[in-house]
């Protein structure tokens, strides 16, 4: 955080794929070759997100998969919408519950 170049300015816009693990319900992110519980592993799915989502749902690895906008910068992947950042981080009022992404200042990362 705190990059002097402007918070997320100049970052690349990417599409990433997220959903919930079918059996556990955990929030998961498509990492290119499988699913990860860390948003920092999320891979750019380009224009293939929807096809991938349907295939992975059919393979029972994910439920409710959907493609979202994100930015990719020196601080890693950051979902564009606060809702997906809260999904990535967990409830902002219970940070104790969740494995956190690697950013140091997670509060600023979410809001």
């Amino acid at each position, binding site marked *: 955080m705190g990059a002097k170049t402007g918070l997320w300015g100049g970052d690349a816009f990417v599409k990433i794929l997220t959903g*919930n693990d*079918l*059996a*556990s*319900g*955990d*929030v998961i992110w498509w990492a290119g070759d499988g699913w990860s519980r860390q948003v920092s592993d999320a891979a750019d799915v380009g224009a293939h997100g929807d096809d991938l989502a349907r295939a992975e*749902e059919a393979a*029972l690895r994910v*439920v*409710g998969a959907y493609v979202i906008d994100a930015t990719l910068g020196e601080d890693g992947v950051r979902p*564009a*919408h*606060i*809702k997906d950042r*809260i*999904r990535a981080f*967990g*409830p*902002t*009022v*219970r940070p104790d*519950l969740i494995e956190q992404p690697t950013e140091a200042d997670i509060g600023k990362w979410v809001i």
Partner: protein
Amino acid sequence: MYRYDSYDQAIVDARVEEFRDQTQRRLTGALTEDQFKPLRLMNGLYLQLHAYMLRVAIPYGTLSGKQMRKLGEIAGKYDKGYGHFTTRQNLQYNWIKLADAPDILAELATVEMHAIQTSGNCIRNISSDQYAGVSADEVADPRPWAELLRQWSSFHPEFTYLPRKFKIAVIASDDDRAAMRLHDIGLKLVERDGVVGAEVYAGGGMGRTPMVAPLIRDFIAEDEIISYLEACLRVYNRYGRRDNKYKARIKILVHEIGVEEYKRQVEEEFAHMRELGLNPPVEELARIRAFFAAPAYESGLSDDIDRSNPAFALWVDRQVAAHKAPGYAIVNISLKPIDGIPGDASAEQIGLVADLAEAYSFDELRVTHAQNLVLPHVKKADLYAIWQKLVAAGLAEANLDLITDIIACPGLDYCALANARSIPLAQKIAARFAAAERQAEIGELKLKISGCINACGHHHAGHIGILGVDRRGVENFQLLLGGSGAEDASLGQITGPGFSEDGVVDAIEKVTDIYLAERESGERFLDTYRRIGMKPFKEAIYG
């Protein structure tokens, strides 16, 4: 308390096994999500922001110690050690694994609980007054009727696919502690010429089109309540707006055709129902009522309370309410500690309250629509011992109906439909007004927050209400003043442009300052607002 008979138990057990099979078929791919979703929703299982969420019904808000203990055990064993008590007298678990859901339902069934009809377009959990059976001013205990309605509405084949969800509340006092007139149907038990019956209100609700339910019948005798409701539901089922989800609630129907026309159609249907003889036998109501007989109160108890400990005295003054039996009291347990999450309780806290109910309250407790808990039958002589245990468990906040006793929906921290986070805002407001003297000075002030227009946090009915909106991807909050969910029900009015999270806390402070400056003796915030109107508040906030 009501106990399941063999039919109740068999139905619930069969339902668990059915869901176990459905879940298995989902996990092995025999069912797609499109096929499975309506099945899991019928069993209270949602897919929420972070995980599956299970909503468990607490019928009319009454629980035994054993049931409460089970809720705590499930929170510890299958969830992350806590549960969330909601404005609909339900409990939500936020971190459920699909594979565990059948086992959880099986555990609930062992204590006569379930999650059936906690979702979907059916008649939902019947809500009631948390002081039912113990307040001095009630006409009768409303819970036998609530239980009768539960049995009638459970798996009612005609009302399983209504145009939209349907919520019923039953009360029996002039003080409305259940937001009765903000339900699709509200019943208020009354007595006329020695006969108990009900006033019937229909077409209330919150959400995007809030309405206070109008009275549609000023008396229906108790033995005809079921067939009258059957008629109300039939008219709604036939003419409710199935074409538009946002116009499908009964409130829209009543509003669009008009109260008089709705009443006329209901009466016509009712005349027809009467001929069919569909009312349950009076013996059934008598059978149910026997379960709610008052416990064996001891006589000759003292009403004295030793108030020498000031913190205890403060808690007694705020949290303890009058009980109808001499020597007894009603204890309200706050789930609103200043830095806590409104309505959340840890597995340990839930277990402790279960113990207290067993040891001190004839094995009974209640949950309230304001997201608090109640021990309904406590000896005054035991208050101090109870208080000490609550203090040790972080449950002794003395803020009932004060500005920090905030109702807040889960908001964007948990809910996939949310625009904004409700809980952090509730925490900021509570922190700002934390000082006990300041809260006492302000007096009764019901503050309610929803994270979106669906109004799960009853913001329309708050003396001060807050609604989270999305302003180009940024959380924003609208402020409403003048709502009430009580017997003086009214809907709050929006003050004007919305605020940031910190901005809304400042605005509330300005609002309470105006109230303190303008109030006349004996006035609550709501009374002052109703007397002086919106203008002075608006000027203070935006001026």
